[in-house]
């Protein structure tokens, strides 16, 4: 929570409708996402009860488990889900593009599009992760054999769930999270976890305030929970008798009624997000997602093992470091794409905006061995500038150019900052037109950087120190994994 978001929340209270906290969309949104709303049976470890799934609003598919405690029925559910899910995933394995070689990479092929799974909330992501965990190690022959699609589904679900932890990835999104990134409501984060209430604040029905709509959304009779947990009263009064009666049609109609309102909300969420223009760097992150998708698809094709139950010490540390770097980069990218996010950094003194009042685009620094082009600009800002001389800053308007703070001096109101620029001006001793800010231009400078950071060095897998358990054995699923109870 930043102060800007906090202010947006109080504004939402007084205006009666959610307030924007982003000027652009920061997630990728597929033209054909797969909306997946799972329900689990209360009290059990992720026992599927039902799901509504599909990639277009008009054709949701309802999957129901008649006896949620029956193991065979659970696997039958997984097989039916696999049919929908895997054919959706496969439909993106058509056209590829060639990505040219990079500094440390060979040229590679990449699918031009990738699947995108949308679930209602964080619990939905957890469901995907656990369903993946409970199916990916299953055997397709011998005792306890399951349909071949079941372990394959498990691996893909696990792939999506792991990707969801990666900052900036859009392969698996949860709707409350995605909406909450772009709008602040007049209620608390706890209440925002209710998708119906959140959408009620963002897009209240005619004649209602967001607060009214959210209050109404809390009634589980009108707006059943978006899962995976069900409403206890529904469980006791409707679900239990229907399971008892063993009537599929009765169960289906009861569960459909629980799921349909959320289905509608999910697609309303999709269109709310679609109405926002995408940020400039969204496409770049989606390309990374497409890379990850392409890589995993070929790993599966080559017969790679399912993901381990737990990472070894080195792999876990590597993963953590990777996530941290991705987070830093993602924060910077959003700020570069969106002046409202950048404004949060202005508020905390990590950025300032101002107008160029003087510019020396041809300034040469000849103090060193080589004469170099080092233009200077003076920026006058009314922000409270808190930078010391020597600090490096970048403006999102010219991301490849760095400014070194030469001096900061107070003005009657605000500050005057002198910056010395390098980079982004070609190789010569004259700056190409437009590469140096001109007098009158309004700019924001920040210490946030989206430049490449070298990954931390980790010992190779086989050199894992004994303090961290020594080299891990390759994770090969064994009999126990394959026959693990699911009761």
């Amino acid at each position, binding site marked *: *929570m*930043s*102060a*800007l*978001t*906090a*202010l*947006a*929340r*109080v*504004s939402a*209270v*007084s205006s009666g409708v959610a307030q*924007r906290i982003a*000027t652009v969309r920061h997630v990728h949104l597929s033209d054909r996402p797969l909306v997946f709303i799972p329900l689990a*049976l*209360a*009290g*059990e*470890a*992720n026992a599927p009860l039902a799901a509504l799934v599909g990639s277009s609003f008009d054709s949701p598919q309802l999957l129901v488990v008649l006896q949620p405690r029956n193991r065979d029925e659970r696997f039958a559910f997984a097989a039916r889900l696999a049919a929908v899910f895997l054919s959706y995933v496969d439909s993106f394995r058509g056209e590829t593009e060639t990505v040219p070689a990079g500094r440390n990479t060979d040229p590679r092929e990449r699918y031009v599009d990738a699947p995108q799974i949308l679930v209602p909330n964080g619990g939905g992501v957890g469901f995907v992760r*656990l369903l993946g*965990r*409970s199916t990916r190690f299953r055997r397709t022959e011998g005792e306890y054999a399951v349909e071949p699609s079941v372990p394959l589904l498990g691996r893909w679900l696990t792939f999506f769930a792991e990707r969801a932890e990666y900052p900036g990835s859009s392969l698996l999104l949860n709707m409350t999270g995605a909406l909450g990134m772009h709008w602040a409501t*007049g*209620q*608390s*984060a*706890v*209440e925002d976890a209710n998708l119906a209430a959140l959408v009620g604040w963002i897009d209240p029905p005619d004649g209602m305030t967001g607060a009214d709509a959210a209050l109404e959304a809390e009634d*589980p009779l009108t707006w059943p929970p978006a899962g995976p947990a*069900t*409403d*206890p*009263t529904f*469980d*006791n009064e409707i*679900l*239990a008798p229907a399971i008892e009666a063993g009537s599929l049609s009765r169960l289906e109609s009861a569960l459909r009624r629980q799921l349909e309102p959320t289905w509608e909300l999910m697609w309303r969420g999709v269109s709310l997000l679609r109405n926002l223009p995408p940020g400039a760097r969204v496409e770049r992150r989606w390309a990374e997602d497409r890379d990850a998708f392409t890589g995993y698809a070929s790993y599966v094709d080559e017969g790679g093992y399912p993901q381990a*139950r*737990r990472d070894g010490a080195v792999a876990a540390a590597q993963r953590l470091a990777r996530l941290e770097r991705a987070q830093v980069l993602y924060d910077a990218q959003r700020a570069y794409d969106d*002046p*409202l996010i950048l*404004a949060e950094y*202005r*508020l905390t003194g990590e950025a300032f905006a101002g107008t160029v009042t003087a510019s020396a685009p041809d300034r040469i620094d000849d103090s060193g061995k080589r004469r170099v082009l080092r233009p200077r600009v003076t920026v006058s800002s009314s*922000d*409270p500038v808190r930078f010391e001389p020597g600090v490096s800053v970048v403006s999102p308007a010219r991301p490849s150019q760095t400014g070194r703070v030469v001096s900061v001096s107070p003005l009657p109101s605000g500050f005057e900052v002198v910056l010395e620029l390098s980079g982004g001006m070609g190789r010569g001793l004259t700056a190409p037109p437009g590469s140096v800010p001109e007098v009158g231009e309004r700019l924001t400078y920040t210490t946030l950087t989206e430049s490449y950071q070298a990954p931390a060095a980790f010992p190779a897998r086989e050199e894992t120190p004994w303090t961290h358990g020594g080299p891990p054995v390759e994770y090969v699923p064994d009999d126990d994994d394959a026959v*693990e*109870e*699911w*009761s």
Partner: protein
Amino acid sequence: MTSPERLRGAAAPKSHNARTIAALTTNPGCSRRAVMDAAGIDKERLAAYVGFPARFGQSQFAITRGNVFEAQLKADGCAELLRLLREVLGLPIPQVSYDDLESVDQLDARADRSRELLTRAAGGESGTLFDHPLLRLEVGGRWVYLEPDLIALQFGGTFYVVEIKSFAVIDGQADGTKVSAAATQAAVYVLALRRLLAEAGHDPGLVSHEVVLVCPENFSNRPVATLVDVRKKLSVLERQLARMARIDPILESLSPDLTFDLRPDSSGVPQRPVAELVDGLGQIDARYSPECLANCELAFFCRHEARGTTASLGKSVREELGGVPSVDLALSLASGAVAPADDQEEAAAMLRFAAQLRSECLS
């Protein structure tokens, strides 16, 4: 000055259990809750009567699953549980005997019998499993009965509280909120058992600050036991219980004729005008935060009352707004419509800058 009895009126005091006692620790700063709980007022009934019913339903599927799991562990004289405890606590095999205290009917008799057996065990050597002993704890000046799932005694004299829960531990990980709630409940039992031993002249330190949490493993019904350190929970709990024992200063500030008696008629239907009760609730300071929604039966009432406060949007919202308590004031300071008080200068400057940034970026 009023009294807890007067506040409660003619209704029987609402009994506490480990779950409700554990819930006390979630908003220790709230006087309203402290008074209600100390007086044994039925908050759930009160909330429903004044038009803000709580929603703490439990699914029968969850209840069934919990019962089945516990029964499975305790079948054949706790055979399965013993195997687990031997592993995790190193209980020696021959010494374990088993006392089922649930069979004793009368509450008091059961509590007495439990005390007798537990204190005797504290002096002796024998390893024993106590099933459903009944403990007592003083809460807000009244004794409440508590029923742990089990207390195990290790060879060598340390007592361990065993808590059985039916949420799954998957690949060594479980839902953090659930683990924390289970640990708080177990801490209530640890505290009650320590006090029981202390009263009988034994060292309360005989009760371990580690509790044994038994849960199903992965997706199976196979149990797995984990030791959980509850020291932090214990200190929070003790602080809150001490606070409830000292509610006199709060009571002193209340009007002597304040009562939450619902005045049921002869068929038990409350007759008390709702407005009087609402007014009464308003006389006791609350400290609503969104966390109340998961923990207190009065949450919807208090939320309604707290509309327009920044705290009702979350503690972090209030903090980010520089501690400004109301939505209107925050907006007025941000727009400059209101001049800040001396201690609000800094917050106001920040709010004005924030408002300027928002309008600059959104125009």
